């Protein structure tokens, strides 16, 4: 029985960065209804708080993004699952007559309510006509 030739140890593999954690992203259900002053939009964002909500208006587009922190400690063992934890994302095109500067929003019990006021009607402007 021959002795094993000594071979150099193979170089240890380079450390591989952990794979990025997958996060689910959900489209939250919304209600939109009209009031006399404008539109009201309500979105269900369970688990989202003021600190984790982002609301942006850009170029006639309203974007809402809510991050949801884990509801249970990491060591918790999942026995039964009917929903997955994830973040919320949805965007909307705003119509021309929404007054961007007066948009307001509140977040209560995981429900976001956005008020999109109608822009006031522009006053008709008289145009002076000069004679010949």
């Amino acid at each position, binding site marked *: 029985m021959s002795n094993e030739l000594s071979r150099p140890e193979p170089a240890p593999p380079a450390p591989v960065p952990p794979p990025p954690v997958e996060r689910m992203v959900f489209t939250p259900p919304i209600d939109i209804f*009209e009031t006399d002053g404008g539109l*009201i939009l309500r979105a269900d964002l369970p688990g989202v708080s003021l600190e984790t909500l982002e609301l942006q208006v850009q170029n006639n587009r309203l974007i809402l993004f809510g991050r949801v922190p884990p*509801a249970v*400690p990491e060591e918790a063992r999942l*026995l039964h699952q*009917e*929903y997955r934890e994830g973040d919320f994302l949805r965007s909307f095109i705003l119509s021309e007559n929404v007054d961007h500067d007066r948009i307001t929003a509140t977040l209560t*019990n*995981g429900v976001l309510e956005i008020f999109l006021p109608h822009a006031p009607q522009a006053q008709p402007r008289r145009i002076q006509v000069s004679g010949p």
Partner: protein
Amino acid sequence: MPVFRWGHHWGEAFHDLEREVDRLLNSVNMTFQGLRFGRQFPPINLYELPEEYLLTSELPGVKIEDLELTIAAGVLTIRCSRTEDGSNDESRYRRQERPRGTWQRSLTIPDRILEEELRADLTNGILRIHLPKAPQEKPRQIPVMGN
């Protein structure tokens, strides 16, 4: 291969249900995303920790006064309702996707739970119920009478 399982502690109450749902799920190709609106409301997750079970549920917009948790004879019942405030007439809705109404769900819990010490909190629309496990009971000696 088992697909749908409540977990062995809960198996007693759900054996037949588990078998039936397994049959259903094995015969249908389901994508989870599509279930989001078709599933039960409110949805419930159950976790286990060393000292307690933890039940979580998504109940956005449900106020504490519209939520009722009861436990009796080892059955936990969650009753909640959500109605639209602002009482708008339906014709003014442009879009209506959020579930509304009254719901009730009941779950049989193992008797190894300290019922008097259940705690629940509702924060940001997430309900969490802590179900502390009962300590293991010591075996009790049974005296035997001789003749």
